[in-house]
């Protein structure tokens, strides 16, 4: 498996320092809307990368705009006692927005799979590993589509963004134990589908 620069690598370092400011900024924005800029500037890029991973860059811009508008409109409902960082809250909103773009998501994943297959064919690798990787991508696509939403959402938030289980729980508004079990089940289900490719 080749390694890539992941979103997780990119966002982790910068996320925590801003967390302490989020709650205060959101509180201030109730009187001074422009204070919301702090939240926007801190988290836009992470939210964009996540959304782009889910529905592709072509659709991401629209969705991200909707996410921040929805967040701004509902900022009074932000609950810092659940997470001082606004990121899980924003990603929760993003997840719900993404759910309105299922077709775009399917197309994006299919496009990713096809592109990966093309890339594999052109890379200077052994024939066996190339075919193997192409099959892996194809099966991963199928497996992802087959994964129930309740398992896919927490798994992708955890894997693509690097949210902790606690943050995933805050994002999706579910219990910590539920997050653990759903991510575990999701991984098992995916691994089970993919397992045959590796043999």
């Amino acid at each position: 498996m080749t390694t890539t620069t992941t979103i997780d690598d990119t966002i982790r370092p910068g996320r925590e320092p801003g967390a302490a400011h989020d709650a205060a900024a959101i509180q201030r924005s109730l009187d001074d809307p422009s204070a919301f800029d702090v939240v926007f500037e801190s988290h836009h890029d992470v939210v964009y990368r996540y959304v782009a991973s889910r529905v592709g860059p072509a659709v991401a811009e629209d969705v991200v705009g909707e996410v921040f508008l929805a967040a701004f409109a509902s900022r009074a409902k932000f609950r810092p006692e659940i997470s001082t960082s606004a990121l899980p809250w924003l990603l929760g909103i993003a997840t719900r927005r993404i759910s309105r773009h299922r077709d775009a998501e399917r197309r994006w994943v299919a496009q990713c799979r096809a592109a990966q297959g093309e890339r594999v064919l052109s890379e200077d690798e052994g024939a066996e590993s190339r075919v193997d990787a192409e099959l892996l991508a194809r099966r991963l696509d199928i497996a992802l589509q087959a994964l129930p939403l309740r398992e896919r959402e927490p798994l992708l938030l955890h894997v693509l963004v690097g949210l902790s289980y606690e943050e995933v729980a805050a994002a999706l508004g579910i219990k910590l134990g539920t997050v653990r079990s759903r991510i575990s089940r999701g991984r098992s289900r995916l691994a089970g589908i993919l397992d045959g490719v590796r043999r």
Partner: protein
Amino acid sequence: MTETRLDHLDLDAALRELLDPSGHDPSVDLDRRIDRSRGAARVRLRMAYAEGASRWRRVRVLALVSFATLAVLVAIALAPGGGSDGGGVESPLERLTPSATAGEVLESAADLVVGSGAAFGSGDVWHGATRTYHDADLVAVNEQWFDSTAPRYLQAAWGDDTTLEHRDVLLVDRVEDDGIQRIRTYVRPDGEAWQLMPGLSPTNAMDVVQGARQRQLVLAMHEWLGVVSRDGASNQELRAATTRFMGMTTDYFSMQPDVRLDANGRPSMRGIDHARLQDVVRARQAVYLLTTVRTTPRATAELYELMGGLESLERLPDVRIGDRIGIRLRFDPSDETLAVDRERVLVLDAETGDVIRTETVDRRSWTTVEPARRVEQLGDERVLCRDVKAVPCDLLDGVGPVAAAGDRFVRDMQVRYAVHRENRRLKAEFGDAAPPVMCREMSDAGTCLPQTEEERRRIEAIAADVDALRAAATFDNATPGTGDDDAFHLGVPIAEPENGVWQSSGQCSRQWRQLTICRG
């Protein structure tokens, strides 16, 4: 190859690799897209801030206002020389009839919007914005607000400084009741919050000429819209209101060459009548919707209700690249009664406003609702072309801009596509041990030139399969070039266009190239 089950790390890495938003297409510059997204989202948020600000909370910001467009719109619509009977440039509004569809109104309005580079709206609070793009990236935004119920004028601009130094600058330009204009200039160093420009006074009183004139213009425009929008308004009332408004616009747009002026330097009033004004009003409504930049679904729904019957649209930010402007109009997906989720794309010549390309797509499936059409240079002629099928670029390598007309060309393309698939299959199956790639050499007409007898034999076998498929297929003569995307890959013939020629587009996009039908 390992025989152990995939562990978590492998699985997570595979997921990240599969869904890497920048890893599949070298042409996707993710950083650039992020910057663009940030700029666009920031504009939307600023508008939301304006809606939520306490000063303006009692009224809604309904839509974007631009004074220029309205004036240009009115001037063109009312100027006698602007019509087709005037011998001058045909006004887009001339094409409108009482039964014009929303699409026709929108097309006409879009011409005006693009021609003026601006737009307008209505309501108690007016909000105008102009956006500047550089190579499709948003680099500057200029916004104006005006509250007609308590005359104050506020302008804010942000974006790249025009100096060599690259930084965000926010200019707040406000005209108070006392007619004094006060300007505050803010800057935002990288990674820091907005702050007042060092060395400048927090309230820097300035000359009010421009702000005051805009304020007067807005008041006149507000009055004019109030009259023309009211049922039962008499011709006399319309003339009076229009005269006042046009008087204002004469000053304001005296440097605007698109506005036709009479001998006295005023936009001509000849030809004014109810029907024409109704056209203006309809176009206004269309522009209103067209320019609802990044509005919320709720605001869009309100606009839709307000406009009463026009299709609900959201206009996404324009993209200007070189001499072309792209306008994206999104039908409001939240409007369940319309049950549409479509996006209309207009690409216009920035110089002339001519539509270069127009297309409507269903955003749910990204399938084309109305085929794309665009004007292209074909030999010495400018012809209208319609995209028919995207094919792999290498399939069209060696094919000139004008290919041989007729179904033979399509058949050859289908053979080449089948060969292409076979090349891929062999490589996937046998890797480095696969036979040499076929069709490496092409004739000028785009047919394969086999390099060996073995290759010739294999290509002929593939061609025979394609011909067999074609012979068994239904020839759909009624819908040439549409609905047969899959059929093309399967080898089904595509009807030859009447009086048209096939050609391939000159540029590859994401390793695909369009096969088009063009007509003179």
